[in-house]
């Protein structure tokens, strides 16, 4: 499936900010077997004094912007054309929890794909007893890792209410889970916490959803802004599989990935630290349109 993606983010800094530095993770990359980036362009207004695009630890494009003169606002405009490939249908070859833990321990790697990064607590996903109990209750003996991930994704979708006003970008998963509502970020963090409590390596994916559903299908939640979902390590045979707990589905051709990390902190679309603290307002719009002539 081929998509045209348009995103616009505007940050207004109440007080003009000298020496503002901003770090952006918005540019999608090629992912073998998953997606191909046909074109991409990130336009920054006003023109930054410095711009530097590097790949971060997890292989995401990290764009650093610096402004030497005080700026009152910054506008980021992304245009990208990305082809998303159909995920292969495969047999469930994932091990059960015991097998998975042995397989994970056997991976002697520190590279970005290694499950080792995704088992322990991460800055924004601390272990939580409630979430852990919820996950343990779902994981019946004999279930495969894939089955558990699907069950947890479905259970969170059933249990939680999608509510854009209930949480903000700093809400910890424990709080969102206790109130049983939140947005894609909360759904994803809770699912990650649940999976890690079971010893299943799990990470965070930021990206886009197609704005309008295919004919006859319901519109997916979270399509008006950047979306987030979860990826799960299902053993050395199956590898990483992506689930979208907000929509209780596997991330397939409707999901365009931008960045991977342990939690939101690793992939935040815009991070900025300003010397002058003032009220910061942000506007954000996304349009993801499938192109008729796919390919």
């Amino acid at each position: 499936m081929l998509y045209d993606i348009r995103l616009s983010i505007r940050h207004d800094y109440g007080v003009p900010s000298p020496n503002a530095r901003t770090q952006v993770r918005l540019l999608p990359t090629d992912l073998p077997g998953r997606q191909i980036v046909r074109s991409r362009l990130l336009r920054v207004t006003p023109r930054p004094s410095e711009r530097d695009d590097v790949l971060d630890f997890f292989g995401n494009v990290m764009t650093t912007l610096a402004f030497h003169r005080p700026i009152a606002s910054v506008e980021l405009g992304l245009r990208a054309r990305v082809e998303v490939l159909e995920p292969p249908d495969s047999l469930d070859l994932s091990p059960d929890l015991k097998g998975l833990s042995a397989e994970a321990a056997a991976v002697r790697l520190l590279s970005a794909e290694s499950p080792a990064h995704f088992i322990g607590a991460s800055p924004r996903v601390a272990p939580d007893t409630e979430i852990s109990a919820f996950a343990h209750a779902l994981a019946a003996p004999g279930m495969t890792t894939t089955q558990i991930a699907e069950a947890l994704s479905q259970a969170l979708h059933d249990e939680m209410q999608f509510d854009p006003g209930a949480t903000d970008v700093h809400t910890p998963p424990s709080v969102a889970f206790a109130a049983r509502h939140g947005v894609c970020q909360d759904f994803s963090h809770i699912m990650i916490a649940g999976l890690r409590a079971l010893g299943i390596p799990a990470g965070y994916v930021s990206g886009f959803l197609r704005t309008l559903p295919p004919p006859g299908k319901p519109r997916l939640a979270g399509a008006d802004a950047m979306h987030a979902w979860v990826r799960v390590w299902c053993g050395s045979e199956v590898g990483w599989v992506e689930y979208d707990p907000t929509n209780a589905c596997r991330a397939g051709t409707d999901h365009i990935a931008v960045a991977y990390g342990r939690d939101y902190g690793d992939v935040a679309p815009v991070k900025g630290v300003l010397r002058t603290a003032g009220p910061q307002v942000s506007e954000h719009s996304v349009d993801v349109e499938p192109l008729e002539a796919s390919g």
Partner: protein
Amino acid sequence: MTAPAKRIPEALSTLLAGYNVPAQVADELLDADGAIRPVWLPFIEQFAKLGSEQIAAHFARGDQYLRDAGVFYRQYSAEPLQERAWPLSHVPVILHEQEWTTICDGLAQRAELLERVIADLYSEGRLVRDGHLPASLVARNTEWHRPLVGVPPVSGHYLHFLAFEIGRSPDGSWVVLGDRAQAPSGAGFALENRMATVRMYPDKFSRAHVHRLAGFFRAFRDAMDLLPGAEGRRTAILSPGPGNDTYFEHAYIARYLGLVLLEGEDLIVQNGEVFVRTVSGPQPVGVIWRRLDAAYADSLELNESSKIGTPGLVHALRHSSVSLVNALGSGIVETRAFMAFLPKIAEVVLGTPLKLPNVATWWCGQPSERAYVQSNADALYIGEALSRSLPFDIGAGAAIAGAFQGDQTHGRAEDAPDAQLRDWIDANGPDLVGQEAVTLSTTPAWIDGQLKPRPMTIRVFAARTPEGWTFLPGGYARIGKGGDATALSMQRGGSVADVWVMGDAPVGDRTMFESGSFRREDTGMLPSRAADNLLWLGRYVERCEGAIRLLRAYHLRLAETGDANDARLQSIARHFERISFDVSAPVETLLEPSLQATRLCAGRVRDRFSVDGWAALSDLLTNLSESAGTLAPGDDSARALGVLLRKITGFNGLVHENMHRTSGWRFLTFGRALERADGASMVLRSFAGEDRTQGLLDVALEYADSRITHQRRYRVDPTHDTVVDLIALDPDNPRAIRFQVTAMRRIAETLPFARRDGRVSAVLEALMPLETSLAVAHPEDVIPARLSEVRRALATVARRLAAAYLD
């Protein structure tokens, strides 16, 4: 083992009567046979000749030095900003240079090993791939900073300055208890300990044989100057700030080594380079001795919540523009669980076993090690695998000798303790390590008038130089509080001692400043943040002084009339209301916030003014809090305010007279002038305004400390015009607005960029018309509206000064 009396010379037997070394413990003073080690003899013989009063007098000299030097340390846990006296144990630990050399030889090997480990963890990750280090101990480690992976240090090395905590086992051999690589502290304190012991023990204690410490620091400083990028750029110490428990040491070392002391806020990153913001614009920084934990160093790429870092620092490292001592991420080699793997890694990486073993450690993430820890829990400390604390700083989530610490419980309460322990280890294996419960050696400490054996560990400092690792010959010993020689007694409440490394012959005398012109001072360079704090310090002190003077005027009149409804008193009260003061509140409640603000400001620039100045300020606050609740309004308060006034003028004098950094002094003085001019404008507005009663004019004169001058000069009772002439327009009265505006203008002319392209700076642009208007004004023109204009002009000056030099 008790010291058998026959092995102790007669002359020493009294001194050592209470010196009973516990069984199965090595001792520094006595060898295995209970005889005094030769290296201690000269010292102990001299010591034995002293009577108890002489001993007290010797110790007092050291304590006096520490007090005078302002040595203290701050405790995080206690009250905010609480400072404690330095807990010096007055008896040094003495080691022979031969033994010391062996220790350093082992530690040099270990330093090399740590460098190789960290270099691998931030590049290829071979140690993990080859199975020498479990991936989870790295991937779950909060000191493994992913943004630094693949960012080689520009200096070619990750580690430049290390510390090792070592202890002596019962068999006499040395063991490494912990590695310190993140931001090793203590070297400055070691220096201070030495300064104190030098004062306690004159040369006859054979101090001539004790290795000096200065050469080490000089070598380290020289090594930093030789790092790539150092030339033509600043070398700085980066501190977390005055809230940190070792801030004193940062300030001390900065002064000692002639480095500039910076906080994260002082630095900016532009085009991949690091600059320090100074009053004369950004200046490039080439080497940073980092005393700030890596996680806090860059809120953009590391811990987002950090407010004490420099956004973009990691970006600058990626552009290889600055050398960090030590590299960000070095803290990972402090990880407790690494101790379990380092002995093997040494053989693999260096091809040779460790010369100096580390404390035996078992990681419970491996089945056989876990089983070992479970069956030997009685002889082990079991604690967090990823902790970077020293073995004896084991936290609450730990078990010692088979018993849980604190009131924590694990597993089912009805189970036997050993079953609980077993379950706990089974459930949390990868998070736990077991470490041998080390028994330390003892060393003499002077307790209740006697020498007693107390357990000790030594912190050894190492610096990388172009010739290899060099070691501080001596160091910093921690002395346990109780007689129990297990490491447990080191946990809290101990003291510290100097470590003497003795040669057989007198050693050379080296100081920090020998061999030509080593001392360099950055007189031309003042970080903007320091300038800002100095400016505010100047303002706060002046503001306090003004408030005290006016409060005193109030209470003097209250004492006189006994009537708070007196018109003059009401006028003063209204004046205070304008600056949000309730004059009826107790004096100490009114003044405390301003004085605390002064102290906070002073604390931030403490490295820039004298210890005496600091002591005077602390004294002032103590004085104030002691008088809390005891001061009745009127005479009582007036008298107390008189005392405070003398003290604050004393502090003011000390600060202004003893500040040697020229540009720093300028900002301090500018702040004082600004506040004084503003205060005088306000006071004239209140007390020489429409209601020109003489009683109020007197208040204004008292505020400006100009009563006597007025008498001498005008020889009439004060009128509006004489008072205004003296306090607003007089060019020679240091209390007058005009005098202070001129002072500011003169300072502004000496600041950077005062004149550029034929134009004066924005600050001068605001000051010059103000100065002129005051010079040509007639006293009768100076009406309240005019004074408000003056205040607005002063506010513009302050704003422009900040914009030009301080932002």
